[in-house]
């Protein structure tokens, strides 16, 4: 057969593409369950990081099942609604109008019996999305711990939001000021919020990412404000 003829070329490319296509489909199908498991475990680990529970690779799932005693979805009024909290994608929730968002809440019971409420947050950094989980004490006001991650912030600058030292700053900060929801500010070193609200130090060189964190906290947690108010009333009883 003439190898330079059009028939040969077309036949060759058709066979090549079919063979490669089948090969890729088989690989994808074979590895899919393992990948889904990895992604779910990664999310579990992120949720647990907000309450400082570190677990060795492999038993993330058992640690998650042990500490996260309950998870549910609340609406904009702070009432529980139907839905699976774990499978909610914050990226698509945040695009909805504020009143219609489905807000997942993960309730964690620590070894000492204290209850923590873990709330997901999602926002924009400099290059791409940033997200995280904020754990709030049973008083519905004090931040117990925070975890942030990002897709592609500059390593060494904006990407520092995913370091322990940045996240540790949020511990003990108050979300409410004089009974009103205020969130935690992220300020450049030496600056303070004018109204005296709680703040943490921004990352030098990562100004836009730091501002992104501040906006993310304010925008996402304000949705939870009715829910947090309810916890506050409950805990003060």
């Amino acid at each position: 057969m003439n190898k330079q003829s059009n028939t040969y070329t077309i036949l060759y490319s058709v066979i090549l593409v079919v063979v490669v296509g089948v090969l890729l489909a088989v690989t994808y199908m074979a590895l899919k369950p393992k990948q889904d498991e990895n992604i779910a475990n990664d999310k579990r680990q992120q949720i647990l990081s907000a309450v400082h529970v570190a677990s060795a690779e492999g038993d993330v799932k058992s640690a998650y099942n042990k500490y996260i005693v309950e998870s549910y979805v609340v609406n904009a009024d702070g009432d529980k609604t139907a839905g699976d909290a774990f499978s909610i994608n914050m990226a698509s929730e945040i695009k909805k109008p504020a009143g219609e968002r489905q807000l997942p809440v993960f309730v964690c019971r620590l070894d000492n019996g204290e209850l923590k409420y873990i709330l997901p947050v999602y926002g924009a950094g400099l290059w791409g999305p940033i997200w995280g989980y904020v754990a709030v004490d049973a008083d519905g006001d004090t931040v117990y711990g925070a975890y942030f991650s990002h897709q592609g912030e500059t390593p060494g600058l904006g990407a520092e939001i995913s370091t322990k030292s940045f996240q540790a700053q949020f511990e003990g900060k108050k979300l409410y000021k004089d009974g009103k929801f205020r969130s935690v500010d992220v300020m450049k070193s030496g600056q303070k919020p004018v109204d005296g609200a709680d703040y943490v130090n921004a990352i030098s060189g990562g100004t836009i990412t730091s501002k992104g964190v501040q906006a993310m906290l304010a925008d996402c947690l304000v949705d939870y404000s009715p829910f947090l108010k309810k916890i506050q009333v409950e805990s003060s009883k």
Partner: protein
Amino acid sequence: MLSKKNKGILFNPLSKNNPVVVQVLGICSVLAVTAKLEPALVMGISVIAVLAFSNVIISLIRNTIPNNIRIIVQLVVVAALVIIVDQILKAYTYEVSKALSVFIGLIITNCILMGRLEAFALSNKPWPAFLDGVGNGLGYAIILVIVGFFRELLGSGSLMGCKVIPQSFYDMGYMDNGLMILPPMALITVACIIWVQRSRDKDLQEK
């Protein structure tokens, strides 16, 4: 198996004919993934795997490839291998695949791959083509690891994620060089390697 010629094919790309510092190919990914040592290492291994196997596959089918679509055939083979590597990394080393993100996919555009397929695999038997792929992949990986080593050490004070510069140094006023983490310093580090290599190897110096 390893005749003198084959040894040359395997080892020449490590220094004298290094794809990165002599041919200056694949610079883009050297900039992107060398801020830390671990991703640099995984990227190096991935490129070795993709390059060796695509060289073998192209070499096996070299006599059947129609000449006017040979670049497309090469691309399809490379792209398929890259996707398989990416899927395997996602399934078994999820953390590293998160760190490498898009750069595994970008192996497809690495000039070293197309260069070796076009210049070597299309006109050689599978075994030498395999050695050529491993050799060039190693040559690329070595530079990646050297650059990654210096950038992580000077930029973050750590290696493979472990702190190696003792806290007492920081207490005395030592500071990590944040510039090392940014892409331009990868270029400068590569330039330093080229400088060292050329001053040692007289054959590489232009008259």
